[in-house]
């Protein structure tokens, strides 16, 4: 089941590649023709105005020298078929594997280095100050897409990218596909209402409340996030909990998003002093998620939702 959405995406990509290579070939299969048509239609759709977190942005022509400083945006760009138009991605954009990774930093962007690529569109998810201003001064169009707070916002971002890069229809397809799959997964795990969950961002007990994207995913399943009570401590939605609290709440499900950064595993977690009292540890409902999937809000969110749905089966079987 995990591979169907991936296969669908690959099919779209493949079709676009064929279309790009054989746009003169009238005997190409219908998808290719329609993609070619999409491309021409796309080119004709410019100039467009899209809305980013830095305000409206008008893009004159279809961009084909895109620099992405956001790992999520990179994934989305490739998913909607704009991968060819991307010339450089930041050092954290490790998916898909053939994305042109560079040393550019999304955390500490260097405007000069970015400008060196002579991009006609820059997409970022984080502006530590000076990035947007600096690029605007150089007349480089920049689209800022902050971390989406929920799925709807994430879908909107993908659609925006579609408009910005001339892949409106593919973007809609990707979003539709995501929505469908997520709805299926959520309804298949019905009966998980009220299950408590603890999402671990780090072994020092940093967690994410329902105000965050990943928190909203849990909300889809009707799960109760134990970090919500600590929401006041951190306006951004990432409070540091205390070990006592986690043990006393005894969550039914523990999701580890620190398996890569900090080497946490289900085994290590169950050995923590006092944690053997937690329901999730007793029943073995500890999920090891990939850090990057759990921290991005792009098309692979479906994988994360899948992971949760699968583990909820284990919970409801208690």
């Amino acid at each position, binding site marked *: 089941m995990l591979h169907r959405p991936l296969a669908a995406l690959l099919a779209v990509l493949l079709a676009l590649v064929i279309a790009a290579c054989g746009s003169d070939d009238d005997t190409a299969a219908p998808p290719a023709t329609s993609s070619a048509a999409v491309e021409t239609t796309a080119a004709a759709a410019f100039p467009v105005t899209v809305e980013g977190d830095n305000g409206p942005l008008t893009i004159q022509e279809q961009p084909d020298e895109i620099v992405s400083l956001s790992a999520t945006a990179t994934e989305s760009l490739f998913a909607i078929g704009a991968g060819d138009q991307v010339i450089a991605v930041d050092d*954290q954009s490790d998916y898909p594997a053939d994305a042109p990774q560079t040393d550019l*930093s999304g*955390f*500490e962007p260097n405007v000069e280095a970015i400008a060196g690529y002579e991009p006609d569109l820059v997409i970022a998810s984080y502006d530590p100050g000076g990035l947007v201003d600096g690029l605007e001064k150089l007349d480089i169009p920049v689209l800022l897409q902050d971390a989406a707070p929920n799925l709807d916002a994430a879908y909107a971002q993908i659609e925006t990218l579609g408009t910005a890069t001339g892949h409106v229809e593919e973007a809609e397809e990707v979003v539709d596909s995501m929505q469908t799959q997520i709805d299926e997964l959520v309804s298949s795990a019905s009966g998980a209402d009220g299950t408590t969950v603890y999402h671990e961002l*780090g*072994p*020092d*007990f*940093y967690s994410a409340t329902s105000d965050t994207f990943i928190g909203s995913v849990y909300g889809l399943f009707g799960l109760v996030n*134990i970090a919500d*009570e*600590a929401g*006041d*401590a*951190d306006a951004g939605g990432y*409070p*540091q*909990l*205390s*070990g*006592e*609290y986690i*043990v*006393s*709440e*005894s969550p039914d499900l523990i999701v580890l998003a620190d398996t*890569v*950064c*900090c*080497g946490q595993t289900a085994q290590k977690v169950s050995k*923590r*002093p*006092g*944690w*053997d*009292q937690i329901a999730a540890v007793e029943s073995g409902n500890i999920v090891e998620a990939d850090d990057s999937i759990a921290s991005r809000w792009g098309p692979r969110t479906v994988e994360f939702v899948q992971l949760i749905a699968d583990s909820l089966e284990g919970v409801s079987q208690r």
Partner: protein
Amino acid sequence: MATARALRARLSARPERALRGVSAGWALAAGAFVVVSTLLGLALGPVDLGLGAVTREVLSHVPFLGVSSPFSGTEDAILWELRAPRVALGLLVGAMLASAGAAYQGVFRNPLADPYLLGAAAGAGLGATIVIAYDPGGGLDLRPIAAFAGAVLGVGIAYLLGRSVGGSATTTLILAGVTVAAFLTAVQTYVQQQSAETVQEVYSWILGQLETSGWSDVLILLPYVAVSTAVLLWHRRLLDVLAVGDDEAASLGVPVARVRLAVVAAATLGTAAAVAFSGLIAFVGIIVPHAVRLMAGTSYRVVLPLSLAFGGGFLVLMDLVARTVVAPAQLPIGVVTAFLGAPFFAVVLRSTRGVGP
């Protein structure tokens, strides 16, 4: 002879308070402070276990009293596997930092000295940052070792640098320490920036935390703190003599360089071990000894033992605040010690200055 006898009579009539070390009153106050903070630390927390229930649980471990424990498995785990080791760690770290701070202030004759003066903090920070940035998978287990090694190396280099420049005069050593600390901090900042995604982890380590991995941490730290504070206490009278300066102390027969080395080595070892587990908790090492001086007197025979006790209790209370004020979230303890410690010290300063002959 007659004179001596007469003097001895006067002696017993007027006890030499300062020469006797810690007075009974202060010893009692210190002990009570430690006991009360420990009890509060055990009884209170983000999870409300109930003061009465905690008391019964503690008593149930005392033989022959026949008190049964009202706790469930979870509550028992919270109290004994999470809270108690945390309180114990607080006592050890607080005692160590405060006494090391007092010892440094004595051996450098500088009221602004704290246990991080010679580069211990910068070295520990660098060690921890390197581990966090470059070995994320192995992470947690290497961190204390790297921090400890970093602290010891930092001070060692500062000491050697000072010695090579010109003897072990206090100013030279302090300057060497400042130099080494600045350099190590620069390297640490660079390493931290190289792997920007771990910045939050590094920062949170630097601000300090008493979250433990259970009793094992406490048991590892205990011998370091015990040995270190024993050596410091052993030198407390000598610290008083050092107060009149290197020259005069030497003319009074004190081997100044050796004493300084012994005190710095012991204080650094203990501080490095404490910092390895708790991160760089600021403020305790400077403020507690000064508060003790203002309240109980300046002789190190008083300041060192009282700093031990008050430092431990103080840190336990600070940690209590850190884990309850925004419960169930927690604040980094370094923030709390500064935020609460500074006004408290201002109060002590105001109420005791201007009092006295």
